């Protein structure tokens, strides 16, 4: 049953709004796709909206060509993102469990601090981290970037995992104890298997954050061979004189979209559900 009965006019307006918004959401992406997959000669003014032929030349060019950025920047981003996801998942699982299950006096306060921290955006960390890393020798190291990413994702992760653990009835843990299982076995056989969906979401969010990160590596990683694609793609933009190599930049962007959109497609339902909570914080 429909919740509200709309007039025909209202239905038409609704359909128009939804369609316009869809166009707004998808047109820019379709345009990137269209520039990336058409021959470079067709990316010139005056341009045809629909490409007359499609090619993977630009994608190949970005990854393997002489003017390409190569595979390494993508591999670097994946390495940073995955490592950060692992660190975040471990740290968030530990912290979330402690805050969800132990009745600490300071637990509630800690959880609130965690919520506030997860709200702070990464841009304001660029300068502080640059200072810290310069002073401590972590400047330019991959460990430094990974830990910086993970520290940024961990507050939200702890918050989400505390929620996930609270969803697991404490009775199940008690049942495991009575069944003769010690802490470790209870953890391994009962709690962790039930927390896997939550851990997966936290790790995914952290991976996406790491994979997408631009300002932190821009400032923290000076050496080109360890920079992620976000920083490497800048070479296609010459600020002076408008020299932008659009076919290669679009193709490079397209490659960058593949992992996140794949993960998003797989975990979309869960991310939409949990992300509603997380997104309210993270933005």
């Amino acid at each position, binding site marked *: 049953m429909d*919740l*509200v009965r*709309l007039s025909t006019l*209202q239905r038409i307006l609704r359909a128009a709004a*939804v369609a316009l*918004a*869809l166009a707004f*959401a998808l*047109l*820019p*992406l379709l*345009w*990137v796709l269209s520039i990336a997959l058409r021959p470079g000669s067709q990316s010139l*003014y005056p341009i045809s909206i629909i490409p007359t032929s499609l090619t993977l030349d630009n994608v190949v060019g970005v990854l393997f060509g002489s003017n390409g950025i190569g595979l390494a920047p993508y591999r670097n981003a994946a390495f940073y993102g995955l490592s950060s996801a692992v660190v975040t998942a471990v*740290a*968030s699982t*530990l912290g979330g469990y*402690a805050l969800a*299950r*132990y009745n600490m006096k300071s637990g509630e306060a*800690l959880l609130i601090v965690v*919520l*506030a921290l997860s709200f*702070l*955006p990464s*841009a*304001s960390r*660029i*300068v*502080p*981290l*640059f*200072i810290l890393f310069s*002073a401590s020798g972590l400047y330019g190291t991959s460990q430094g970037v990974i*830990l910086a990413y*993970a*520290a*940024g994702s961990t507050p939200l992760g702890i918050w989400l995992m505390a929620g996930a653990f609270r969803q697991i009835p404490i009775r199940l843990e008690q049942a495991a104890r009575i069944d003769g299982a010690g802490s470790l076995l209870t953890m391994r056989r009962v709690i962790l298997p039930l927390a896997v969906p939550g851990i997966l979401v936290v790790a995914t969010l952290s991976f996406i954050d790491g994979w997408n*990160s*631009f*300002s932190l590596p*821009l*400032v923290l990683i000076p050496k080109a061979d360890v920079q992620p694609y*976000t920083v490497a*793609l800048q070479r296609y*933009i010459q*600020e002076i004189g408008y020299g*932008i190599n659009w076919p290669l*930049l679009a193709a490079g*962007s397209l490659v*960058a979209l593949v992992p996140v959109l794949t993960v*998003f497609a797989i975990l979309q339902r869960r991310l*939409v559900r949990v*992300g*509603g909570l997380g*997104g*309210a*914080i*993270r*933005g």
Partner: protein
Amino acid sequence: MARGALRRATPWLLLALPLLLVFLFLLLPYLLTFYYATTNATIGRLINVEEVGLKNLQLVLASHAPAFLGVLGITAVFTAGTLFGSLGLGTGLALALHTVSPGVRSALLAVYLIPWVIAAVIIGYTWRLMYDPAIGLANDVLGAFGLGPVDWLTDKATTMAALVVANIWAGYGIVLLVISGALANVPPNIILAGQVDGASYGRIVRKVILPAIRPTFLLAGLVALVSGLNTFDLIYAMTRGGPLYQTETMALEMYRLTIQKGNIGQGAAVTAILFTISLALAIAYVVIWRREARKWT
């Protein structure tokens, strides 16, 4: 009893790693920033620095090219545009989707959410491409209405609007998601009751639905506010603060002073301002959130 002591210590043992991580790489850097904001540190001189008190802050406030007040104004315009744009679009769309079936709604939500997972810098490039005077689509859309063409990112009059539209594209999805969640939680009975009382749908939205989601609306607004305030990647990718500092927000000013000019002290001073504002908003967020959470438990 040893068992009791171990039990009391367990949560802290579990928390040791996450707290250490968060302290070292999240809290400590901020603390350092406040310290360095009062020193004459530069990129080449991070140790043996001299305390200079509030001199950095004064220099930042008194700076020309760009004037700090101008930077503040630009930040305010960009943030307000993002805030109202993504709240308006997100809420309007959420209301439109509220009346469609849940299956269709979640499919559409997933599509609208795609920008949420895309790197801000890639979003910047995407929109830069859209605005490109030679091969961008934006002028084709204008042309369809008999307008244009416009040189979006170099014309002072349009640059800010172009940036705001791109940032709305990046951010409205999450507002939509959060508001949709809140709408789904509005008890259907109060909407049905409104209809039984003979109210029109528009009236029900204004008098029943919107008041019911007000807290979520506030929270979503705070999120949009903070993310607008701290947008760096997107602006850097699209204009780098240009043309002629027309889009130089505080986030970019912070980067320019610290990394490009190497003046750590002044960069840290700007960061401290930005951080303090963000922290105040974060605290407001937590306060509102807790008030709401308490109502529901």
